[in-house]
């Protein structure tokens, strides 16, 4: 160890004696490390921004059957939903569930394929649902008695009847072999955006989008009684309590269905956009970091070049040292220390500059980026820069150490 410090001191003496050149040698490493640290930090910041944006808090969560444990899909019953509503009380605004079936509806205009949502009165205010523009939604009473009523949207009304003044009118709905005459209670708005989308679909020759919402109890009339649902969506009264509501619902459902296993229910993960975007950003960051890493290698070659020049220039010094008793290992250690210190110092300066640039970009919000210094990037950059010095220092160091003292002394 003591001897190692001697080599470090020799290296430092020599770096100090050649300040200008040592700095220029470091420059390649400095630029490489600065760019790696800055780019990775910007990538890191972008990633955080994207993840934050896609993680926007919502009030609505969905609890579903844990399909890994339970294969049945019809486990959440109407009683379960009533129980949830009673137990969770005012902390939830809305509890909705539905099951979609396909059917056919027939009017004077013809017969159309339709998506039929078998649902509950709460579905009126389901997440993303458009408001009613005419009439009203079906009620608890309608549901309990299984009345043949429905709610459709303006688009569907136009397809089925040619206009939207259709509250109170009825049409024939067939599901599988069952046929029922259903009466329209209310009309949902179809937004202009949706109309445009539909126009595009039509232009592509796709079938009309006909959607009908009926009380789920009506399923019995079609000979397809719904015993239960696969999932239930809960809208919390305020967004802060969303996750609390979700875990409470999971617990309550678990306790009511212990016969299905330890944990038959779980909170549905929203399609994880943030993970996906995070992965993409990671990819981009890795790519740009790779490009920056190439500049580090170029910097390393610069170190090697200068060290080779230095070996040639210092042939006599090496000869003197060997004549005075330096062994091969001592000379290698001295030169390796020198290249490692040069690139290590370059690394430290690069990290400081990169950190400074990162802070500057964050402070000025250039491009709205909140760059944040990535600790792993800093650690890797440090190790990498020292590694570069050692790897690219080996060749010159060995060259130096192999010089014969007589040859070395004879020069000049």
């Amino acid at each position, binding site marked *: 160890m*003591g*001897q190692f410090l*001697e080599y470090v001191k020799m290296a430092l*003496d*020599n770096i*100090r*004696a050649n300040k200008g050149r040592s700095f220029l040698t470091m420059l390649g490493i400095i630029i490489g490390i600065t760019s790696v640290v800055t780019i990775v930090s910007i990538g890191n910041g972008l990633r955080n921004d994207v993840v934050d944006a896609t993680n926007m808090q919502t009030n609505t969560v969905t609890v579903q059957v844990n399909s890994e444990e339970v294969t049945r899909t019809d486990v959440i019953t109407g009683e379960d939903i009533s129980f949830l509503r009673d137990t969770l009380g005012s902390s939830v605004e809305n509890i909705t569930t539905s099951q979609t079936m396909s059917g056919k509806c027939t009017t004077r205009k013809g017969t159309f394929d339709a998506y039929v949502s078998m649902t509950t009165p709460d579905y009126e205010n389901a997440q993303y649902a458009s408001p009613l523009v005419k009439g009203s939604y079906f009620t608890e009473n309608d549901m309990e008695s299984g009345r043949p009523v429905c709610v459709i949207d303006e688009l569907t009304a136009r397809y089925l009847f040619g206009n939207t003044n259709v509250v109170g009118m009825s049409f024939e709905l067939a599901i599988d072999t069952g046929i029922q005459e259903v009466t329209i209670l209310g009309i949902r708005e179809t937004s202009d955006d949706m109309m445009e989308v539909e126009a595009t679909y039509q232009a592509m020759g796709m079938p009309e989008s006909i959607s009908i919402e009926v009380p789920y109890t009506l399923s019995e009339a079609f000979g397809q009684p719904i015993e239960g649902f696969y999932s239930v969506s809960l809208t919390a009264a305020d967004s802060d309590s969303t996750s609390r509501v979700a875990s409470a619902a999971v617990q309550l459902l678990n306790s009511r269905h212990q016969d299905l296993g330890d944990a038959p229910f779980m909170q549905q993960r929203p399609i994880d956009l943030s993970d996906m975007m995070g992965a993409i950003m990671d990819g981009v960051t890795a790519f740009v970091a790779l490009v920056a890493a190439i500049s580090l290698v170029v910097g390393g070659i610069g170190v090697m070049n200068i060290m080779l020049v230095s070996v040639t220039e210092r042939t*006599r*010094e090496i*000869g*003197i*040292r*060997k*004549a*005075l*008793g*330096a*062994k*091969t*290992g*001592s000379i290698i250690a001295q030169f390796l220390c020198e290249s490692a210190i040069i690139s290590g110092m370059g690394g430290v300066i690069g990290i400081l500059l990169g950190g400074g640039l990162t802070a500057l970009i964050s402070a000025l919000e250039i491009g709205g980026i909140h760059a944040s210094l990535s600790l792993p990037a800093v650690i890797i950059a440090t190790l990498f820069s020292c590694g570069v010095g050692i790897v690219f220092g080996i060749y010159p160091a060995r060259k130096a150490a192999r010089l*014969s*003292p*007589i040859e070395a*002394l004879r020069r*000049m």
Partner: protein
Amino acid sequence: MEPLIRVDDLHKIYNPGENEVRALDGVSLTINRGEFVAIVGHSGSGKSTLMNMLGCLDTPTSGHYYLEGMDVSTLSDNQLSDIRNKKIGFIFQGFNLIANLDAVGNVELPLIYRKVGKQKRRRIAVQALKKVGLGTRLKHRPNELSGGQQQRVAVARAIAAQPPIILADEPTGNLDSRSTVEIMDILKELHKSGRTVIIITHDDDIARQVNRVIRIMDGRVESDEIQNPNEE
């Protein structure tokens, strides 16, 4: 008692085969402790090759070199480094100081490779520099010193490690006459204090000042005479 240096039928052949150069062609000699020897020869006589052998800077093609009874002609590079470090103090014609180290730093060098601790090393170096009259130039770098002073730093470096042999290769070759006298005086002083001093030179004036003159010609010992040194 085993002589300090015993060289036995030493050969050094460069470019063996065609165009071979027999730099040393069967040199045998013995040098005892405390001798003051000049190895004299013209350039190309083989005296520098002999000096490289005696200084353990090079290994012979054939023959043996016993240093304090140990055969060093077959040692590896790293072993030779060790021998040079412990047994031989070099003084070169071109001083061979390291430019970016001050006087103390230069004198310390052999002690660093001998793994002597920092404090002790510094003390020894300062002492050696005082001995050669450079007690006031400890922090000077070589380019801040005159030729004579630089050579005195080199002498201090050679004696600091207390080696049994001082090997001086044309020590006064680059010096003016006044500095030559200074350096020779120091070498004589070292001899008087019991060191073995070997000077390699082509200069008969230098040769006249030592106790024994070995003349080399064409890679062989031409003459080997004991003399009374001519004190100038």
